[in-house]
């Protein structure tokens, strides 16, 4: 029984239940501490970037110096000293081009420990016969500031799909990068995106050519390892006309007493009839029970449905990070385009989550759907913040939004702040939100059937988030269900 499995797993784990909290002892190369034009030049030089990209970074850097850190989100943290961070850190062995065979075994062991399959063969061959049909996933593994390896590149290449670290794409496909980089999230977008534009170090690049259905799931696994570093990755995914791609993203970090900054930018572009499905399981280190340590996850994710009848779908499971500040959005520019946002945000301990989405309807006959499930426990605060807007010319725009919050315990908070802007009579918007606790009746029913309190809560919570779980790719589903139970451990009773 899946629930029983969960309970056993939970009970195996100690009070500090973050299981990815180990560190990898590996020699690394870092940029000098602090942020200046020299840091930006250092990173650009490390990547061997062309002049135009350096200029682009420097412009972002200068702008960043002139703007203020935003304070509107419902999160509280000590001011970040941006000059006390390392903006670039790479395992020494990971420098220069590499294949799987060249990767430092220590790194491979790290990913093995994290449960990320990097060995193509192992996955292909499987263990026993039944495993052969297991879905294959191409992985881009990003360790601190660099991508250490990307798997299945050749097989993807045969289908015409480009899947590589963005620094490699700058070198090999400059025309694509130059055309699309910053076209969805401009360097001037917001404080953290501007910072990212100046100092981003690596991330994934995906281009799916016209009419191609990407033959396997693509994924990136982000790992912060080094002390005092920030991770600034940049992901750019382009789905050309009539193509389809499903992309997964996972992330973890060691347990450290200090807070670490993760400021990423993700840009998605869907052209005519293309579809991008982007799923995230965010499990950064959330800090200990008293709120010490943990990742500040300040991320800008935005998709541009640029073409007719294009579709972008965001699915996120947010269980980690001390602070989450993240609003994956869709710009529905193409006529008939669709945007979707499915989210589970769980906060426990002293975590603070301020997350949601924006659906900006610009084209005609565009539609969007938002399903958000927030669960707060412990002393955490969980905020949904969303915007749905229809512009004057967006005739027949449709939106359906449902935001449900579940509170476990009386020391936490759940907040819903939606902005709904209809500037068009033909727009049809429906928004619904509820907040409740686990009903006593449901609990009683489960307990009466012999489930323990923890089992019952796990069952009910899994039921509460079911709508979103259904949107997750199979590979993530089982893991996510366990993650949910673990995140809520200690919050009952």
């Amino acid at each position: 029984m899946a629930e029983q499995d969960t309970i056993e797993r939970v009970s195996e784990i100690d009070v500090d239940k973050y299981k990815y909290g180990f560190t990898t002892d590996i020699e690394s190369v870092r940029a000098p501490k602090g942020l200046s034009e020299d840091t930006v030049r250092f990173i650009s030089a490390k990547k061997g970037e062309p002049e135009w990209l350096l200029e682009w970074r420097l412009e972002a850097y200068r702008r960043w110096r002139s703007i203020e850190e935003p304070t509107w989100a419902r999160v509280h943290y000590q001011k970040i000293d941006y000059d006390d961070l390392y903006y670039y850190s790479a395992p020494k062995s990971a420098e220069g081009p590499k294949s799987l065979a060249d990767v430092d075994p220590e790194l491979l062991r790290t990913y093995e420990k994290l449960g990320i399959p990097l060995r193509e063969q192992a996955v292909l061959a499987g263990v026993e016969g039944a495993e052969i049909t297991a879905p294959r996933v191409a992985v881009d593994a990003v360790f601190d500031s660099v991508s250490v390896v990307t798997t299945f590149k050749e097989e993807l290449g045969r289908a015409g799909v480009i899947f590589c670290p963005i620094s490699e794409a700058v070198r090999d496909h400059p025309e694509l990068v130059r055309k699309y980089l910053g076209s969805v999230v401009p360097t001037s977008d917001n404080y953290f995106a501007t910072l990212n534009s100046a100092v981003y170090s690596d991330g994934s690049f995906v281009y799916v050519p016209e009419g191609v259905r990407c033959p396997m799931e693509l994924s990136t696994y982000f790992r912060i390892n080094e002390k005092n570093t920030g991770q600034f990755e940049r992901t750019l995914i382009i789905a050309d006309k009539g193509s389809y791609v499903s992309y997964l993203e996972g992330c973890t970090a060691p347990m450290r007493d200090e807070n670490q900054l993760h400021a990423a930018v993700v840009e998605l572009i869907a052209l005519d009839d293309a579809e991008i499905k982007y799923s995230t399981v965010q499990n950064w280190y959330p800090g200990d029970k008293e709120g010490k340590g943990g990742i500040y996850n300040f991320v800008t994710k935005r998709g541009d449905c640029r073409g007719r009848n294009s579709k972008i779908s965001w699915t996120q499971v947010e269980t980690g990070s001390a602070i989450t500040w993240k609003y994956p959005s869709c710009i529905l520019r193409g006529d008939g385009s669709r945007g979707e946002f499915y989210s589970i945000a769980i906060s426990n301990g002293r975590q603070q989550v301020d997350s949601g989405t924006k659906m900006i309807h610009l084209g005609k006959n565009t539609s969007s759907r938002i399903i958000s499930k927030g669960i707060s426990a412990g002393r955490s605060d969980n905020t949904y913040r969303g915007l749905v807007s229809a512009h004057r010319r967006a005739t027949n725009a449709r939106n359906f939004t449902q935001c449900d919050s579940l509170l476990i315990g009386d020391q936490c908070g759940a907040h819903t702040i939606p902005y709904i802007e209809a500037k068009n009579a033909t727009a049809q918007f429906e928004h619904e939100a509820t907040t409740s606790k686990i009903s006593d009746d449901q609990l009683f029913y489960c307990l009466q059937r012999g489930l323990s309190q923890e089992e019952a809560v796990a069952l009910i919570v899994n039921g509460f988030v079911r709508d979103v779980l259904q949107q997750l790719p199979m590979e993530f589903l089982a893991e996510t269900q366990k993650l949910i139970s673990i995140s809520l451990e200690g919050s009952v009773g």
Partner: protein
Amino acid sequence: MTIHQTITAAATPAEQRFLDLYASVCDRLPGAGVPAVRAWREEALDAFAALGVPHRRVEAWKYTDLRALMTAVHPLGGLDAGARADVDASIGRALANIDSYRAVFAGGKFRPDLSTIQGAPGISFTPLCAKLKSEADAAATLAALSLPKGDVVAALSTAFATSGALISIAPGKKLDKPIHLIVIASCEANAYALRHAIKLGDGAEASIIETHVGAGASQAWSYTALDIGKGAALKHARLTQSAAALHLASAKVTLGERAVYEPTHAAIGGALTRSEGTIHFTGPNARATYNAAILARGHSHVDFTLVVDHAAPHCESRELVKAVLDDRAKGVFQGKVAVQRGAQKTDGKQMANALLLSNDAEFDSKPELEIFADDVVCGHGATAGQLDEDLMFYLRARGIPEAQARALLIAAFVGAALDTIDNEGLHTALDEKVAAWLAAK
């Protein structure tokens, strides 16, 4: 509990206009010679200066950029002899005919000649200006008229108040007919500021109707403090109607244990109507049911902003907002339900529906939940859309002409918010207002 944020700004021209206005009238305002009154006003003016004229970067005013919408401040009215006022003509015969204890404020002054509230049984009524004449009176009165924090409209209303209704209803008193507060901004070249305070004693029951009308491009700002005692019940209907006038109103309502508050709020037209309020639960088992209707066309801008603050357990709140927007009108509803730590068993529901009749109309809503207690049931909903084609077809198929079918559907849509009014005279009068608005197209 308010959703205002403190903004600090140097005096821009927008603020300076108000500061200049104060400098020009401060020696002629009621109680100008009484130091306590002056101090009370200047404290409010300082609060205003610190807050500044709100603009779209101030979260609570995101959709109503007052700095852009209010480009001029008229000279203050209500300082000289009373202006002429005709209640029937101003508010309409149907409303004027409602049998009530009437308190009329025209041109910023209380009009005893037009009012009937004086000496009503169980009601103590005094115009504010009467209490500002002596140091002793003022000290006692003003102690109870504190300034809510972060409220620009309350600050302006206090600094410039020329009068206002101070009403107190004796504990246990059940009024036999409603109190009708009629506020007429009678000169279109003037601005008017009033500050009201209404108190219901424990167990009292009352119904208050407020009618606000403005001539031409007049400006009116007002602040009302409403205190509902334990077990008391108040029905509070409020109508704001003008063509081109600007109304800024703020109200802070405090409910004691077991109190019941049933406000109904309708705004018809107006260049700019911004009505913000806080309903604050201080004791358990109280209940508030807020209904609101917005009818706007032309370049009207109507903003209803409401914070329901559940600071006590076992309270219930309901909000229903219906907005009908035509032409280039803009409707705004910002509703926040806040549940404080410990306010268990709170039951809060909120619904905002907008009907957009034109492609240039706009409805912005921000239904917000802020919850710090786990054993609660809270929810909100918001919709925006156009008239249902199926319903239109149904009516047309039954031989009802298009214009009439449309009016019928719109009246029914708005009616959901107004039907809770049980005073027959008022109900009829509002129905007539809605019908007239529909017919005017």
